[in-house]
């Protein structure tokens, strides 16, 4: 394989890693901070992609980004409303919204399950023109993705240090304490999910525009992939300041994509991606659990072997 081929493969992995890392940052907020596993992520990702695509096709590339994020906020609000005001179990609320969004997404795309943006002006085609005479020629996806991720990280870390951000973190940590600080945890949960879903939708919007098409299954399995990236990121920078952890989860997303790219080169079929991400999530979550049980398990086996005479 030539050097240029490796470079181009690496660049694609980097681009995808960065674009998906926005969803990972969304889960960083909802899963790690708010302690809510938001299963509407898949649907919301597609919602962002389809809303973004429709607005871009109608000739508003910049507006498409804000429209997608706004759609994400609405989706997050519904999920939060169901679990805080309607007595729906948190996981179930996400699943219900996710299912409902399937119809909404097809409706947004005008009844079709596939939209093509080959001739559409998007932020990326605009970026291509701007960068045409600079050293960053043909790297518009990378440049825009880096800028977006940097912007989101700055906004997110600043947000998490505000009083509202602290309250959101405390809600996932000890809701009793939030209440006794005269803050309504329903409010903090709602704001947290709205912001997180705005990032998820942004991620979907950028992905669809960068690959110039959107299909209804663009978001399927994204929650597992993002969770895998989040957990990979946590193993590298799980502790420390919010800054470090946020950058860590972006790295996690990029590493995930790089490993996947290498696996593809080693002739792993592309359809294995989702199984691999499932296995990574299983290993990351159950690994520490099994390790903590190992000494007792070991002792029990020894006990059985020796018939109770520990020192035999």
């Amino acid at each position, binding site marked *: 394989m030539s050097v240029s081929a490796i470079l181009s493969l690496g660049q694609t992995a980097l681009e995808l890693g960065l674009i998906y890392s926005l969803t990972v940052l969304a889960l960083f907020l909802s899963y790690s901070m708010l302690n809510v596993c938001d299963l509407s992520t898949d649907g919301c990702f597609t919602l962002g992609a389809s809303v973004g695509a429709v607005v871009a096709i109608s000739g508003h590339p910049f507006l498409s980004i804000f429209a997608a994020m706004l759609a994400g906020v609405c989706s997050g609000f519904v999920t939060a409303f169901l679990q805080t005001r309607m007595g729906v179990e948190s996981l179930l609320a996400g699943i219900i919204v996710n299912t409902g969004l399937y119809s909404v997404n097809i409706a947004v795309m005008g009844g079709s399950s596939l939209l093509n943006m080959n001739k559409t002006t998007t932020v990326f085609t605009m970026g291509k023109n701007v960068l045409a005479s600079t050293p960053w020629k043909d790297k518009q996806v990378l440049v825009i993705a880096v800028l977006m991720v940097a912007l989101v990280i700055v906004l997110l870390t600043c947000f998490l*240090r*505000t*009083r*509202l951000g*602290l*309250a959101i*973190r*405390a809600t*996932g*940590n*000890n809701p*009793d*304490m*939030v*209440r*006794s*600080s*005269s*803050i*309504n*945890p329903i409010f903090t949960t709602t704001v947290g999910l709205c912001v997180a879903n705005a990032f998820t939708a942004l991620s979907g919007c950028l992905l669809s525009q960068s690959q110039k098409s959107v299909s209804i299954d663009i978001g399927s399995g994204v929650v597992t992939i993002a969770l895998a990236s989040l957990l990979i990121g946590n193993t590298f920078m799980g502790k420390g300041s919010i800054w470090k952890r946020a950058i860590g989860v972006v790295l996690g997303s990029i590493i995930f994509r790089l490993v996947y790219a290498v696996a593809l080169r080693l002739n792993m079929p592309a359809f294995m991606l989702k199984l691999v991400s499932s296995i990574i999530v299983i290993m990351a979550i159950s690994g520490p659990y099994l390790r903590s049980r190992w000494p007792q398990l070991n002792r029990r086996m020894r006990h059985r072997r020796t018939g109770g005479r520990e020192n035999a």
Partner: protein
Amino acid sequence: MLRIEHISKTFYAGTVNEKRAIEDLSLHLFPGDFATIIGSNGAGKSTLFNAVCGDFQTDSGTIWLDGEDVTFTPVHERARQIGRLFQDPMRGSAPGMSIEENLALAAGKGGWFSHIKKDEKELFREKLSQLGMGLEDRMKQPVGLLSGGQRQALTLLMSTMIPPKILLLDEHTAALDPATAKKVLDITKQVVEDHHITTLMVTHNMQQALEMGNRILMMDSGRIVLDARDEEKKHMTADDLLQQFQENAGKRLDNDRILLRKQ
């Protein structure tokens, strides 16, 4: 300051597990009162606290806090006026956040989008140093690393950051070792004195109940069976308490934890 009139609460009403936790209970705490509560397990002490805080709504009766009817006010709105400490030191603070961040939330200053300011940090440092636990040098550390006593002292600081109208202490030193318990209790006395906070304290230690505060309440089966204050309380001994309890409740106080602690 706190006026409770004829509140009742029955859990699992209409089932075999029906439990009348509070029955037609009335209590009037005056500004500056420091009342200790003793009573056997299941007497309704914690239920009373839960009712005052709004963890559940009572079946009947009214609760006034500083002249305001709070019977149907949600928990987080009442919390502005109420400071509360539990027996479990872990319940009052967020373990994953730093000491500074916990205090900032409790202080509740500034708008939603304000950051922790320098003068706020100075104030936290000063207040922490008053605890004498060396916490002022660990402000960036997560609260999860603190010991039970340190967390309880921190929680006390947090609940009195904005001096509440009333402080509810639910055996807040029972889970601590004797030395730490004494320290936390001393801090409690100091804080209550400094801000003249009306306080209600549950304890299982009869001697402590007699020593602290200006008023003593005994509870049994969801009712207050004894209420002595000022002069009357001053001259009370543990034996008086037991005798009065027997007369008023119509039975002997059957709680080993209390009797064993009678010195």
